[in-house]
Structures are given as C-alpha cells and as structure tokens.
C-alpha cells in the first residue's frame, strides 16, 4: 500500500511536471497547448542527440533548456501571436496542428526508433523502511515541487507574473497599462517550453525517447492541470499526485485494466464537487 502510494506520487510528479508547463502558458496567454508534450518530446530527442555527440551532461542539460526556450519563442512569434485575445478553441486546435507537425518532425529527423537517455539522477533503488524508491523518482518529485513553488511565487509576487495574468484576462486593458503583451507572450511561451524541456529530460529515462513518448502522459497531465484548477501551480502538482496515486492504487487493488480510467473518475467526482478545481480561486463574474 505505502509502496503504491509512494510510487504513485513519483508517477504523479511526472504528470505534474507536464501539467506545470500547460498551466504556465494557460495562465499567461489563455491558450491550451496540446503540443506541450510533443515539445517535451522534441527536447528529449535534442538531448539525446547532444548526448551521443559526446557533450558532458551539464552542457547537454543547458543546451536542451536553451533549445526549449528557443522553440517556445519561435512558436509564439510565428503562430501563437496571431491568436492573442482570440477564442480558446481556435488556438487550442491550432496547437493540435502543431502536435501533428512535431510528431512527424521527430520522425523525419530522428526516425521511428526508440532511443535511450540516461537518468540525471542515480538510478539505484533506495530502501526507506520497506518502501523502495529510485533516485530518479526522488529527483522528479523534487524538481517538480521546486518548479511549482518557484512558479507560484512568480505569479503571486512578481509584477511580471501579475502582468502575465492580466494579459490573459484582458489583453487590451493590459496594453493600456503599458504592458508589452507580445513580449509577455514570448516570455510565457519561452518559459513554458523550458519547463517542457525539463520534463523531457526527466521523463525520457523512464519512457525512453521516441516520437510518441508523451502521448500517454499528456491526457493525465491535462487531467492534473484541470484538477488543480488550471491556474494554480501547486494545484498542478497536487492534481498530478492525485491522478498518479489513484492510478497506482487502482492498478494494485482493483484491476490494472482500469488504471487509466479510474483517475478520470476521481477527477470527475472532484470537479463535480469543486467545479473550479482544487487549488484555484473561482472565476469571478459579478453582474
């Protein structure tokens, strides 16, 4: 039981890690990015290429994060910018187009084979009172928690973070405040793709690097983001953990066939009770 919960948390942190990037970009630009997982996948491939070229680990990590930032900004500059202030759905479907493009792009560049990326953390299992965790698991949980805390602080306490939320709520009013919304958009996409790159680096050792490595996790990441309130960073992590743990417990005690479905039932039940998600404030509409 305890083992299941602990490894559920590790699994949840993976979902949370992807969810953080999704929430980040949603909170700042109001866009639901279906291609986020694919961006993480591209970053993982990038890291793989850098790795086999023999660069030291730290350089690989650094370059991959840079790659993520560049990727996000390029997407923003050439595509997303046109969707500022537009309806939620058209931009979301547009990112779906990106999803398809990235998938084929990866195949085109790196082929259809599965590759391996070594873990950034010692992979040796650690036995803590009968509960076994790997260094990899611990690392993911730690990084995810730190990222969530940093992003939380950013949005809550920095003027830039507040400006991002204002931009999402009303781009016109934001401009009237002198907020350069295009730069805000670029920045938000850049940061969110750095998070995607981090996710790619951390998840790849578990799922391996291949063109559809993120597709399974993406559903759960979205569920985690929404469960947390798609506006709250700790919420994304908490959502991920709930999804991960409920999935693991279902697998262990109900039926492994329902491992993927039950977390969604849990999410549904929570949303029915709390339609705005766990940690987000209710959207205000006063008449």
């Amino acid at each position, binding site marked *: 039981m305890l*083992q*299941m919960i602990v*490894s*559920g948390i*590790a*699994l949840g942190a*993976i*979902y949370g890690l992807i969810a953080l990037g999704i929430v980040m970009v949603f909170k700042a630009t109001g866009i639901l990015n279906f291609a986020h997982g694919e961006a993480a996948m591209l970053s993982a491939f990038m890291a793989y290429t850098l790795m086999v070229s023999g660069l030291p680990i730290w350089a690989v990590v650094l370059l991959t994060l840079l790659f993520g930032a560049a990727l996000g900004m390029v997407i923003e500059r050439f595509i997303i910018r046109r969707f500022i202030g537009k309806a939620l759905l058209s931009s979301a479907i547009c990112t779906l187009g990106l999803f398809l493009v990235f*998938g*084929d792009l990866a*195949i085109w560049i790196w*082929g*259809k*084979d*599965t590759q*391996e990326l070594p873990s950034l953390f010692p992979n040796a*299992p650690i036995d803590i009172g009968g509960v*076994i965790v*790997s260094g990899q698991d611990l690392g993911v949980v730690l990084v995810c928690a730190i990222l969530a805390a940093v992003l939380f602080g950013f949005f809550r306490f920095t003027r830039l973070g507040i400006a991002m939320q204002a931009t999402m709520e009303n781009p016109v009013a934001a401009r009237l405040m002198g907020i350069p919304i295009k730069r805000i958009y670029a920045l938000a996409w850049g940061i969110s793709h750095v998070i995607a790159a981090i996710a790619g680096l951390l*998840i790849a050792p*578990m*799922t*391996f690097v*291949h*063109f*559809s*490595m993120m*597709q*399974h*996790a993406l559903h*759960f990441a979205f569920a985690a983001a929404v469960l947390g309130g798609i506006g709250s960073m700790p919420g994304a992590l908490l959502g991920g953990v709930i999804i991960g743990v409920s*999935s*693991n*417990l279902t*697998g*262990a005690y109900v*039926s*492994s*066939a329902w*491992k*993927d479905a039950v977390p969604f039932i849990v999410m549904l039940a929570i949303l029915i009770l709390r339609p705005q998600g766990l940690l987000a404030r209710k959207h205000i509409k006063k008449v």
Partner: protein
Amino acid sequence: FENKAQGISANEIVLGSSQPMTGTLAYMGKAVDEGIRTYFDIVNQQGGVHGRTIKLITYDDELKPAKSVANAKLLVERDKVLGMIGNIGHATNISAYSYSSTKGVPTIGALSISDLTSSPPREMLYVLPSPQSTETAAYIDYAVQELKAKKIAMLYQNDGWGKPAYDIAVKQLDSHGMQLVEAQSFERFATDLTSQVFKLKESQPDVVVVYALGQEAVQFFRAAEKLGWTPTVFGAGGLNDPKFVELLGNTPSQLYVASYYDAVEGDNPAIQSFFEHYKKLYPNSAPSSTALMGYSAAAVAVEALERAGPEPSREKVIAALNGMTEFDQKIGPAITFQALDAGPYSRRGQTGIALMQLKDQKFTPLGSGYIDPVQR
C-alpha cells in the same frame, strides 16, 4: 502480355500495401515496408519474376480501419494493384478485406498474429505469421513441462494484441490444471509500470509471461530491477528484436521469446544475405524480426507470382496461393495454405514458432526447433 486493370504490365507488376506509417505502431509499418522492398529489390535485381519487376505502393493507415479501407480502394481502383501485401493488424486487415474481396483482390500475406484474422478463414485473406494461440500456448507448455513452473503470472498490454494472449494463457494453463497466480495489464505507452510489477512480484511467480513490446517491456525489467526482483520471463514474439536488446542492456533476468523465424543475428544464410541488402538500402534501420515479416510476405508473393506463370492474373495468383503447401521461405517454417474448410488455420501460412533465449545480449534458439502446439 499485359493486364493493366490488374496491375500487370509488360515489365512490371504492382502490389499495394497499407501500413501504419504514422501513429503508435509506425515503427512496425516501417520495418515491414522496408522488409518487403528489400526482398523485391533482390528479386528485381535478379531479373524479376517472369521478366517483370515488382513495384510496391504503400499507404499509411495509422492502423485505423477506416483508413485501411480507403487505402485498399485507392490501391485497387487508382493504382490498380494485382493484390495487397503485408498489411499489418487485425482490424485494418478485416475492414480492408471487406472491400478488396468484393473486387476479387487477394491479400497476399496479411501480417497479424491475432487468431481472429484467420478464424474464420477468409477466402482471399492469406495470413502469414504464426498465431498467438501457438505462441502463448507454447510458453505455457514450456514453462510447465520443461521449467517445471508451479506459479505463473502474466503482464499484458490491454488491447486486441495482449488480451487474447491472456485468454489463451488462461486456457492453456487450465489444460494443465493450473491458474495464473497474478495477471496485470497496462496501456500502450504507459509511463510507469511500477504498480503492476509490484503486484507481480508479490505473487512470487516462477515464470512471468509478458506481453509488452519495446519500451514497455524494458520498463518492466527496469521496474523489476528497482524492486530487486529477477524474474524468469516469457516475452511476446515481437521482442525478438536487436533494438529491444540494445535498449534493455544487461539484465540479470531470464528471458525467453518466441520467434516466427530463425534468429535475426543467427547463422541462417538467407537472413544474413537479406539483412546485408537491407542495410545497403536502409542504412539507418536496424535489422529486426519485424522486417523479416516483410521478407516472409514478399517471399510468398514472389512464389505465388512464379507459380502463376508468365501471364498472371488475380485468379491465377489466388489459385497458386491455394495450392501452396510446404513452401520453404528459407527463414523459418514452411508456408502452407489448406482448403478453406480445413479448419481455423486453413488461411494461416505458418503455425510454428521457435523458442529463443536471451544470452549475452543475443537471442539464441533453444535448440528445440519449431514448436507447434496447434498441430494442424
């Protein structure tokens, strides 16, 4: 002689294929496609069949039935292929066949190990690789009889490939008066198998049957390692693949897999020369048992065309296939198609599998030859 409506021109014969070239099974579609093309290239270089070279047109179906029907129509109506070859998958084959059969177009070598693809037998649907009922039953028999396993557990992919394997395993164990001590499933591309592996380990099995491919299979072994467990594993046939071994690296666990053909890295001369050519054509692709499926389909097609004579037609090809008994494809069991009413395996080209064991990062045959519990 020409019959353009059936894809036969003076010096060329056109065949068509519908494969998952994108989506989750894209790597299989690609390997099969390349396998077929390699074999044809070899044949074409030697002058083709009755003076005609063979051309292959492949379309992507993403393993979706609706698309495979569309592809079948496109191949038959626009590209005017003589027949279809090497289509992967059960659903895709059945739906495409529901159309192609109405046009009298044979599927020369459907690549599906699902028993349902050949049972009930369909007149023009010639399925090649050994069925799951052979493979899984062979595992159970070997584990019980040779390894004297008392407790057998299973992990399977929760879909039309893994679940039937589970059903067969249950049935076969039942015939030994046994039951699975634990059964766990997972979804394709699952991120994490820890909970499944944990449950499996807890049941303390002597043998675990694992129906997982590629990265999930590796994940299984990694998770087992993490939990300090070194199980004896029977892995799905698809694992017989150097790429998988490369990913897996060294493992303390015992791994047996079924192979429909001789070992990819073994000393079968046909396989060796095939992959020599393959590497020339596709330097970026690793040799794999999946590519051998393409070989098998292509070999059967070439043989059928040979037998159909210099003035071939769909009817003649069908007749040739119907009469194909004990055709030696040179890489594995001989191919036989029986009369349509001969039973559930009448349209199943081969039914035997070889058991192999992972040793020193290589799959080597156990030496027991091809096992065939189906015994048609």
